């Protein structure tokens, strides 16, 4: 039993001696960090694209609303267009459009 244990220990020590440790290739850490930075940039780009798509969708919905309000209030026989609802929705649309544009600029600057 003792002999077997001794043999086992001997084998373990021999395996440790024979397993060569490798030096890290020069510049590997820098390359890894460059890849990490590229991955981070791609992630930001993807996030920015999704956010921009969200804003575009929001703006399109608002434009549809403006057109819808305009069409509903437009009396084709008398060519009478009540200006207030149209103006109100138009103003709201303008504000959102400006805010959306600013936000898109910010997203692009952060890339």
């Amino acid at each position, binding site marked *: 039993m003792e002999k077997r244990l001794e043999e086992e220990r001997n*084998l373990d020590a021999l*395996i440790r001696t024979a397993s060569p440790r*490798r030096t890290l290739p020069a510049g590997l850490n820098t390359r890894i960090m460059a890849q990490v930075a590229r991955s981070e940039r791609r992630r930001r780009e993807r996030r920015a694209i999704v956010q921009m798509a969200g804003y575009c969708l929001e703006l399109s919905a608002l434009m549809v609303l403006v057109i819808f309000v305009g069409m509903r209030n437009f009396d084709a026989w008398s060519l009478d267009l009540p200006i207030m609802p149209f103006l109100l929705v138009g103003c709201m649309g303008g504000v959102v459009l400006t805010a959306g544009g600013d936000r898109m600029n910010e997203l692009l600057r952060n890339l």
Partner: protein
Amino acid sequence: MRPDDANEMESPTDMEIVRSVAAGDTEAFGLLVERHSARLYNLAFGMLHDAQCAEDVVQEAFVRAYEHLDGFRGACSFATWLYRIAYNRALRECGRRRFGRIEDPACRALPEEPDARYDEETVARMRQALERLKADERALVTLFYDEERSVAEIAAITELSESNVKVKLHRIRRRIRELMEEE
């Protein structure tokens, strides 16, 4: 002292760095790369025996770890989690391609401490025996003997049960003995 214990004692700890990276400090990830890249490379090289492939595996493992950092809950140590990613990548690489061995001078073996107990011929025979093991067996040898990881950690890295790891290590020793006798 085992590498993981050393990392836990270092300031900042791995977990603290992970938190600051998750909070948006990408540069802090560099500390984790510096701490773990050499050992990860050693594991990948041990499995693949190809310098270029080992580099690719290490790079992929780090990038993947970075991309999925929010999925790291700290159930195991960061090193164990990272090893698991690299181990799976290396295994997949082994299965994907048949590789030739490239002895790149840029990744030569570190000078070893001479061990008076063994003559050069015995060590060379052992080295040949180790090279003839399968990739997953070489990974177990690297993790158990070089990295001195516990059976529990190896089980977590390789996604095997602890008893399975013990059985595999026992079989590897037996196989090494046979290979040594063959040569």
